């Protein structure tokens, strides 16, 4: 009951934040890619994550992901986005849902004045012989002034845990996203076919806990060229945490990324997190064109 109330209030808070983060710069014509506060702080590398918001990055890790989270990002005074995600484990698999919203208004480079986007994802994953296989259905919709665009897409993924040098755990996750969209479709609602490979590892380093994550992705464009109207997208991040009591910890994160084109995203990201038993509070900042910083705050219940 308490969990349900918390989830509902988190969602309500998210919607309020989003509704206030309107009017201003329309940064790009892409659907917002950063959907995880922790992941964003680590160079938006989240494909191999075990958090609930991994559903936006690939479905395979839903088999091991845990939690329910809500997050809001203030990109500028007039543009914001937010996410809600929740997962549940079922035997050796898992299911999850995610919703991402973006609201904004006109910006100098855009043809429209008001922009509203929504992405809803439902996914499931199952472990089979050490491999985790996942699939997710997505619905994306956009309203730019009076023009409406929407489409259904599918994500698929596979992931597996390995052991580096017999003691360091390594997770590799491969995701193919936005299956069902064509290059021509992306003129209005930018959801290019995308293939991403994520890696995550971590372990103790003295009294600290260190985590590393990286993503490498390519997106399809008209020419399938990496240099024309599309490019290699990559990110890398590090997290250093300290726990003074079982279930309580804080951590600092930093990331470097090669962002996609047609965005105002720049290279550097950073953040911090505090875990208080079942509650996590995360913050991330991302560097934007024009020496601006976008701020993202998320809460998670496990």
């Amino acid at each position, binding site marked *: 009951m308490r969990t349900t109330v918390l989830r509902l209030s988190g969602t309500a808070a998210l919607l309020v934040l989003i509704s206030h983060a309107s009017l201003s710069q329309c940064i790009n014509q892409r659907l917002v890619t950063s959907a995880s506060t922790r992941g964003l702080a680590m160079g938006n590398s989240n494909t191999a994550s075990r958090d609930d918001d991994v559903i936006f990055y690939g479905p395979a890790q839903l088999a091991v992901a845990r939690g329910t989270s809500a997050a809001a990002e203030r990109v500028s005074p007039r543009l914001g986005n937010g996410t809600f995600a929740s997962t549940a484990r079922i035997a050796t698999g898992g299911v999850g849902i995610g919703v991402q919203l973006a609201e904004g208004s006109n910006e100098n480079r855009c043809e429209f004045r008001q922009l509203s986007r929504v992405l809803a994802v439902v996914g499931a994953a199952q472990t089979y012989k050490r491999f985790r296989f996942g699939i997710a259905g997505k619905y994306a919709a956009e309203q730019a002034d009076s023009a409406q665009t929407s489409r259904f897409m599918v994500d698929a993924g596979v992931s597996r845990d390995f052991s580096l040098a017999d*003691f360091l755990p390594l997770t590799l996750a491969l995701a193919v996203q936005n299956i069902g969209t064509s290059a021509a479709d992306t003129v209005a609602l930018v959801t290019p076919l995308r293939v991403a490979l994520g890696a995550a590892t971590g372990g*103790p380093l003295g009294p600290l806990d260190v985590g590393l994550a990286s993503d490498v992705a390519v997106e399809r464009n008209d020419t399938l060229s990496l240099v024309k109207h599309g490019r290699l997208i990559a990110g890398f991040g590090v997290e250093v945490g300290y726990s*003074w*009591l*079982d*279930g*309580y910890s804080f951590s600092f994160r930093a990331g470097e990324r090669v962002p996609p084109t047609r965005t105002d995203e720049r290279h550097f990201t950073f953040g911090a997190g*505090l875990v208080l*038993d079942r509650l996590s509070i995360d913050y991330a900042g991302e560097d934007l064109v024009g020496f601006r910083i976008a701020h993202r705050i998320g809460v998670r219940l496990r």
Partner: protein
Amino acid sequence: MKNSSTIIAAALIVGACAQPLKLTPDDSKIVLAHQLLDAPNPADRGPYAVKTLYYGSGTDRQRRYYRDSVAIKTKSVDASPFVSMSPEQAEDRKKYWGFDAKAFPINGRVWYPDGPGPFPLVLVVHGNHDMKDFSDPGYQYLGEHLASRGFILASLDENFLNGAMRNENDGRAWMMLKHLEAWRGFNDSSAGPLHGKVDMHNIAIMGHSRGGEAVGHAAAFNRLSRYPDDAKVKFNFNFDIKSVVAIAPVDAQYKPAGQFTPVENVNYLVIHGSHDGDVSAFTGLRQWQRVKFTDGKPWFKSAWYVYRANHGQWNTVWGSHDGGPRSARFLDLRGLISPEEQRQFGKVVIGAFLEATLHNKREYLPLFRDHRVAGGWLPKTMYITRFQESGYKTLADYEEDVDVTTGSSGVTLLGDSLATWKEDALNLRWQNTPMNDNGVWLGWNRHIAGDDTTKLGKPASYTIAFSDTLSRSMHVDSRSSVYLSIAPTDARPGPRQPAKDSTKKDSPKTKSRSSGKKPEAKDEKDTTTIDLTVELIDANNVTARLPLTRYGMPRRPLETHVLRRADRERSQFANTYEIVLQTYVMPLSDFVAASPQFQPDKLKAIRLVFDRSPVGTIILDDVGVSAIDPAFLAQARP
């Protein structure tokens, strides 16, 4: 103001849910004030120079010493009937170890006395731990110590059974017996360094954690002709296992033929730390209860609950962090006794047990009847001990029936003026796991309800009476002893109701007072010391009385907090203490000395009279008598 709020908030976050250190005040200065046992300290180094060697496959991929340094090469064994794992697990393990369950190696490290022998053989096997953090070297301190005192100790390598495995405890036990087969060969082989040095008629097996459970299975398998779970697998061991030692064991992870493992006709010692962060309940007491003596030979069993000891400090590799290197985040390690003290305890108690049972040094036997006789040897902490020997005959163990007025056949139980009198199951504190043992709860309060707080009623009592036939069949005499096992609890029954005066009519005032419910009998927590009188009654109604405290300290439950987070402690443990009963062995000759007219051969009843503490509750179990070996009674009464 803002700063102080910040500091308070930070302190709340940093200290969130962590609990302060809570320990029962130590009474060891009183309880262990005397050293009465007149024998060499079993923790002192013995006269022998110590030699070491390795035996094993000679092909080990991970351990140089089992590859390059083996003095005796052994053949691998097929343990696949006893070990099951998923294909992925099997693949991983084979990749790491270079072998699978079809070819487990017989590897061991040995400490042995430099002398002609033959010397008793002691095998020790570790329990579950990180398989790559090899556990077998962790008993070196014990190996060197026991070898210097004339024992051969072999620490067995079963690391390949460690890690995330389940249902492998029978495999651990079977491997132990295969080691004994190898040892028979070492002793017989005229070319080997151990030829003729091993006394194969004096064997002890010792195990820690899962290994502590495995020694019980090994003792049982040793006498079976077939594997209970698959009769196609034949056994032919029949080794002279005289003694079994279980260090902080688990219990019933493997159940042969779906039953709890029965162990018969061995000397049995189990030790367990109150602050065990891995096996956080005294589960070894269940196996201790199941050890039976049926062949008329002089066996005994002993259980030790060691306050502030943990799981791992009896193994130098495992150490103080029972949950792994980072477990200080969740385990409260502040209350632990030092590793040196814990190992000193191991040397004293395990050393004395092996001296008594394998070297037949009977001077160490009193230690197991009453640990207070070795106050100079034992590290200064608190101990609760259970004891029973093969002469023991049960009068009441509270498992016979559901009638609280009857005990064993021919035994009548009677309570008088008791506030609490009930029989119930004893549970372990970890998630209320059944201890598979029953006891009787006896509570009393001599105070009479009312304004006069000094008014006391007659003492409550509890009588165990037996028929003449039973009395005669027990052959009790002045050499016999009475056994009681008792644990005071912290429950404090409310005051007794005044006796009704039937000659007076209730006035309206008293009526209104008494018209409601009885005054509430609040079960408040009690921390005062408890004592009672043990009264023996003979057929001539002559009574002999002695205080219980003469035979040991009836302590309140020992406060135990293993985890740092109070909320997690509450969710995992039913109580903040483990109920461990202390065994009191009371020689009838003491009662004769106290009351010369008392005739022990005409004993007809044992009565507990609750006259020495006005309020209290105890749990009582295992009431009996025994024609105990007098060696156990030497140096009594500190």
